[in-house]
């Protein structure tokens, strides 16, 4: 165990003149689950994409297992995680089962039959009927697509998991099911997780630690217990919007 397993120092990003965030320091310990919260448009998705290497930050560094992410080490990191995007980002041109097992599609390790079997098992896990295996993403509802997205992210049993608003747009019962599912998956795989969320119930279920992104900075971060008792006005507003 190397702690912290994932760490950013001084991460900054701007799009031309639009500064998104500056000097972001986040660290997360092995096997822990961190929730990042913050208002809409505060840059949470951009921050997550910087961490997973999809967007190049303007400055700042990212460390994984104690060393700087670059070269071979970055390759290793890129193979170590599963991610669920805010809009699910399923491949339109492929049926659900190929979406879920995509990572193995071009590797010799799995035959088509094995990949289908794997997809079926993951579908069970996220609570979708096996009859959806041969459907295409456009034939599923938004919530179902999200669940397929989760199934795809966990198909490789990754060591690290990232979720961008996994419960947004779901009904409360489904949101609760998904939160429970995420917690179970994290525990079962012993994964380290970062979840972006607006959903307090979900955060209570999933997170060990919480970080609040506000106006381009990490305004608050700490364990979930302290979060609930925090006197920070933005957090209080987040927990009970009417009381302020």
């Amino acid at each position: 165990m190397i702690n912290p397993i994932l760490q950013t120092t001084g991460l900054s990003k701007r799009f031309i003149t639009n500064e998104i965030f500056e000097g972001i320091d986040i660290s997360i310990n092995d096997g822990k689950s961190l929730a990042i919260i913050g208002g809409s448009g505060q840059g949470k998705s951009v921050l997550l994409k910087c961490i997973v290497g999809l967007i190049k930050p303007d400055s700042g560094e990212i460390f994984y297992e104690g060393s700087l992410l670059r070269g071979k080490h970055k390759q290793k990191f890129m193979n170590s995680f599963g991610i669920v995007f805010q809009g699910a980002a399923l491949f339109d041109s492929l049926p659900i089962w190929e979406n879920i097992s995509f990572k193995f599609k071009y590797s010799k390790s799995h035959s088509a039959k094995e990949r289908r079997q794997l997809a079926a098992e993951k579908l069970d896990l996220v609570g979708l009927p096996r009859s959806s295996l041969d459907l295409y993403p456009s034939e599923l509802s938004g919530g179902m697509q999200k669940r397929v997205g989760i199934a795809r992210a966990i198909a490789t049993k990754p060591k690290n998991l990232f979720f961008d608003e996994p419960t947004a747009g779901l009904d409360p019962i489904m949101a609760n099911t998904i939160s429970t599912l995420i917690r179970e998956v994290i525990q079962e795989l012993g994964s380290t997780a970062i979840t972006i969320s607006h959903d307090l119930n979900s955060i209570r279920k999933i997170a060990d630690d919480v970080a609040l992104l506000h106006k381009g900075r990490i305004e608050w971060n700490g364990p979930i217990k302290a979060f609930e008792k925090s006197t920070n006005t933005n957090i209080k507003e987040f927990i009970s919007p009417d009381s302020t």
Partner: protein
Amino acid sequence: MILRWFFQIGTLFFNFFFSVGNLVVFIAKILTSGFIPPFYLKEVTTQLYKIGYTSLPVVGLTAFFTGGALALQIFEGGSRFNAESVVPSIVAIGMIRELGPVLGGLMVAGRVSAAMAAEIGTMKVTEQLDALTTLSTDPIKYLVFPRIIASIVSLPILVLVGNTIGVMGGLFVGVTRLNFNSNSYLLNTIEYLTFDDFLSSLIKATIFGFIIGVMGCYNGFFSNRGAEGVGRATTAAVVSSSILILASNYFLTELLFKP
């Protein structure tokens, strides 16, 4: 006022060179990443079907009517100095050296580069390109390279088929409307054709295929966010590939021209 003009012209130039630079980098990336494994052969066959096979009707119809119209025009022109008999060979030469590749290229540009830009652009704005990257799949290798290979391979074949159908269009009109004998029309066609005619046709088609693939993928890949961005990328793909086809056609003709 004048300063603003200068500024605008400056921005225009800057944007132009920025795009050209971007495009060069993009092509370099395709060439460097495309030839190292893994290869997505199945993607190439899918694209061959999509780009090549499904374009056959469009290219065939265009060629047939163009060949027919060409026969009428050349007959009309030729009759002014009693040279109606040149119709078969001029139709064939005009079709094979010039109109076959250019019209075929333009038709396929309209169909295919637009479709590529729309597909890849949509994948970009819906984060599917990001998802590919996180699943250890390079979008350039997986999406772009197979499309470009498929359009480079498809275009010469399409043009060859188009050329043949175009000549047949000329033959049809020649026989039904201009009282040519079909045997002598065909003999006349073949007699004056050279290997160079076919070669120049195929060289043009190959290069047009490259242009179509690159412009379609490039515009999709760098489309802006949202549906509007994808719409603009689609238009840009068609316009830029058409213009590049017409411009490069001139220079290729110049290059392949032997006085």
